């Protein structure tokens, strides 16, 4: 994207919420091996309590058929199916020899313009100084408006505590000078993490200049990052057409047809896509 656009969206304090830091993530899908080490690192740290059994703040599913949650056409979260978060794993689309699939790892996007936040009737959701979107667990009353409002389905209702839970960008770890669990554990070394609003941070430089990717990621020592290599391919966001200005960025897969890439990573800043991508699942599992 152009430097001007970057400056407009990321180079200044958030106009709505005022945060002068915006933590963000860049994931190179070309390198993702679908291992769910991230999922498990997150789960073992944050979501292993009762009520969180099917809750994956970080989820990974094989595209195009993997969906989490599966909504079965319903707008009511009570109907959504969170079981088998990795259904249709490794099921490619196409006919031999032209097959494609990719793993889509998704934490919360900690959007600059979050859809969840204004939806909360108890004002429990806030964006903190670092741009992290959080739900106050003391005041949340479990209305689940946020669950419906988040177009990424990244807020989960905990039926035991009767509150909504979501990814916290591992803020307690960030404060201890560590990267989030899903970033530092990523054994495919696909993720880098940093402050999008800092023009000098590795992540903002790497997003703005894709050619920087082939160099080994220079670890931001304050977060004890390990070395990583990112493909020199234009960086994009997942479903930017939702308009929430996500802080999680992706390097789209090189092996996937361009028209399919556009459905997932349509170029928001160059013109929003208005047609949400519909995934039909021709291979239907019965009786699970």
């Amino acid at each position, binding site marked *: 994207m152009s430097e001007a656009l970057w400056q407009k969206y990321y180079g200044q304090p958030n106009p709505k919420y005022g945060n002068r830091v915006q933590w963000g993530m860049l994931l190179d899908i070309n390198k993702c091996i679908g291992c769910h080490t991230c999922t498990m690192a997150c789960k073992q740290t944050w979501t292993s309590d009762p009520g969180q059994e099917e809750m994956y703040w970080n989820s990974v599913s094989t595209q195009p058929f993997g969906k989490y949650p599966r909504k079965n056409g319903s707008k009511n979260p009570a109907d959504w199916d969170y079981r088998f978060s990795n259904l249709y794993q490794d099921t490619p689309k196409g006919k031999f020899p032209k097959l494609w699939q990719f793993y889509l790892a998704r934490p919360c996007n900690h959007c600059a313009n979050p859809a969840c936040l204004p939806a909360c009737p108890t004002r429990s959701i806030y964006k903190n100084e670092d741009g992290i979107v959080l739900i106050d667990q003391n005041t949340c009353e479990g209305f689940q408006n946020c669950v419906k409002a988040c177009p990424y389905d990244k807020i989960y209702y905990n039926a035991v505590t009767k509150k909504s839970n979501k990814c*916290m960008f591992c803020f307690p770890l960030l404060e201890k000078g560590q990267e989030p669990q899903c970033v530092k554990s990523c054994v495919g070394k696909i993720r880098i993490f940093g402050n999008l609003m800092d023009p000098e941070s590795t992540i903002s430089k790497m997003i703005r200049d894709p050619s920087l990717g082939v160099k080994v990621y220079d670890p931001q020592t304050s977060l004890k990052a390990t070395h990583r290599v990112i493909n020199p391919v234009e960086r994009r966001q997942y479903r930017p057409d939702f308009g929430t200005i996500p802080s999680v960025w992706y390097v789209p897969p090189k092996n996937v047809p361009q028209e399919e890439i556009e459905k997932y990573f349509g170029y928001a800043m160059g013109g929003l896509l208005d047609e949400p991508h519909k995934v039909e699942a021709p*291979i239907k599992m019965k009786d699970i």
Partner: protein
Amino acid sequence: MTTSRREFIKGSLSVAAAAGLPFALGRPAFAALVERKDRSWEDGYRNLFQGERVVRSINMPNCTGSCAWNVIIKDGIVKRVEQPLDYPDDEYNPRGCMKGATYHRRVYSPNRVKFPMKRVGPRGSGQWKRISWDEALDFIASEIKRIAAKYGQNTIWIYPPVPATGIAKQGAGFRFASVNGFGIGTFYNWYGDLPLAHPITWNVQTEEHEFKDVLNTKYAMIWGSDVAQTRMPDAHFFTDVRAKGVKLVYIAPYYDPTASMVDEWVRVRPGTDGALALGFCHVVVKRGLTDEAHMRRTTSGPLLVRNDNGKYLKAADVTEGGDAKAFMAYDPAMGKAVPDVYFSDKLALTGTWDITLKDGKKVSCSTAHTLLLKKLEDYDPKTVSEITGVPAKDIERIAVEYASAKPASIWAGTGINHWYHGDLIGRAVIELGCLTGNIGRQGGGVSPWAGQYLMRLNPTDYFFPKKEGGKPDERYRAVPLDTAYVVNGPTDTMFNKAGLWRQIRCIWAAGGNLLGEASDQSNLTRNVLPKVELIVSPEIEMSTTAQLADIVLPVVSWFELPYDIATTPAHPYIQLHEGGLEPMFEAKTDIWIYYEMCKRLGTADRFKFNRPEQAIELLLGTGGPQVKGITLERLKKERCIRVNLPSSPYASFTEEIEGKKKFKTASGRQELYKDENRFIEFGEQLPVHKEPHQATPYGPSKVWAEAKKERNPLYEKYPMVYHARHTRWSVHSSWRTTGEITKLDDIGQPLLELNPVDAAKRGIVAGDWATAYNPHGYVKAKVKLRESVPPGAVLIYFGWQREQIREGHWNALTHNDINPIHEIYFIPNVWGPVSGHFDQLCEVKKS
């Protein structure tokens, strides 16, 4: 955060206003405009990390990873585990996958074996009686004595643990067998991971480059190794090098996860990879891309072979009193056959001459390379395309790409090894590496990583202790019997059958889930187990083996194990493992159990150890040059130490290829040509393609010219190749019953995966129950349809325990005939029967 939130927001808003708002304040942003005095809930999450204690442990399953994990303990309970990110070389950080990340779930699994148990109902009935440790050990000891008296000491048979997965703990199993003169089985060859092509060509068990060496390559072929699933901690080396512009090619019948992360995926007909490799070789030769210096200096290429009998010409053939072991080559300058000189540039690589033998007879001799070139004539791209299904132009192009990139590497896996003719496939692949001069070079080589066989130290003094007061090298030794024969029964072609074969009467399943994981399961359970009078299963969880055993002993998990050491072929470190937890329930360490058994068998003074520390000190002290200077004390401080190796990143054969030393073979060269009688009898002196032994529509085990004229009668009834394969979700059966992991594996149960075309033919839709069957057995599971599976194949990701399978068993269909080539010698885990469990056929029906 001293600035009040309101001030902070005010300030920033004005900045934004000046710059022009990127997105409109459409709806009121309630929370942001509300001053928040109290965010105390956040502390609840911050406080989670207080009071934690960290112990660096090693995950030691047989997956080849050997990844370190920090065990995070709070109030005596493991809260979670995290990769320590402390490998001295940052390229290896982080290491460890989701299985390591959930090992504590296995420690606290409801499936744990909690106390010694004795079977009271029929085997497998699940009827157990809790007994004390003393009762258990006394009972086993008396049974062992009874069986040994009746059938012989060597009919007590230890199924050996894979040694590098905790050398002290696993090695104790070998030591236990040795000091008692018990029988011991094999693991590496039997379960199909030994690339027999390595001992055949190089007389080494296996040689592979360390994973970091991928970064040095200019072109990589990943051949039959689904690295994205089965080498997760190291898969990033491939994606890293790809990001830098190196081409990755994946050769496999399946569109596996690895296929989606490479530049080119080549679908090859299952079991025909050898033909493809020879097709590449053919192109390399025809295009003049051969590295002749490499062939002349280091391979069997210049050695003379007698055309009358296929044997290497030896000095003793030519001169009276000549050395029967000296190989001969032809020196064109001198115009005669001369004793071979390794690394010489003077020898003819090609040519045929009449050589006068010592009795005056003349015999036609050709260099081995001449014969190799002649063989390659059969593998033109058109023919190879016919065999493999790979388009001829792709064969041509990839061969040129590979041969032109220097260095180019091949990373082979068990996908090309789990075949009856896996040795031939492996040899063909090695031939390609040799022809292009890629052996012994960093960034080159042919590396198969499979199994944690590599100990990186010499364990002889620990495994086979010296006899006190005996001759200098007199040792206690176990009596080997290859696991293949225990499971399949003996063959007529077995090496030293008279000396080695005996019916096993007691199985001590030290090395894991033998009864759940053995191929040829049907034969094992139907015919072998009834003859076995005692099955002892020391286990952590109630595996299939434990369920079918007579006595189950609770063993500590890794986190309850005080210390151990672990190594792997994947990375060059020796690491100290530390557990951090007290043993749970009545669990004991393996080494304690063996010691207690020895006490009851009167051999405790030979076994000596009941704590791992003593064993580790012995192992390091007598381990040889690779661990010179590495002590337990140092390991306790540094935790992870690089062993002494000749190159970094480690690459195989670098010294041999520079002429600094010879290969370990009889000729001192890389033996692409073999002249043992059985190679000659089977026409396998040189790598050739033979059709699979079972899984082919054509003439089984025949070369193409003959095979294509025939139909395989078995195939007419069972036209689907049956593959029970490794998944990312388990290491064999380990983690298969770990709920958090199984939940991520599609619908969390065994699935028969088919190509939609095959399913349609059989009236099957996704989600149906179906049975895959053949004359040996069957398995029933739900069906998943994927284009990834080639038509004509059935895939089941394996490892499921007995109780997780609706009916039958995923290994009930596999049956391994033993290839006589694998029986020319018997060196446990180095040369022995290699499982061909991919070489199987079946049919599928809706059920």
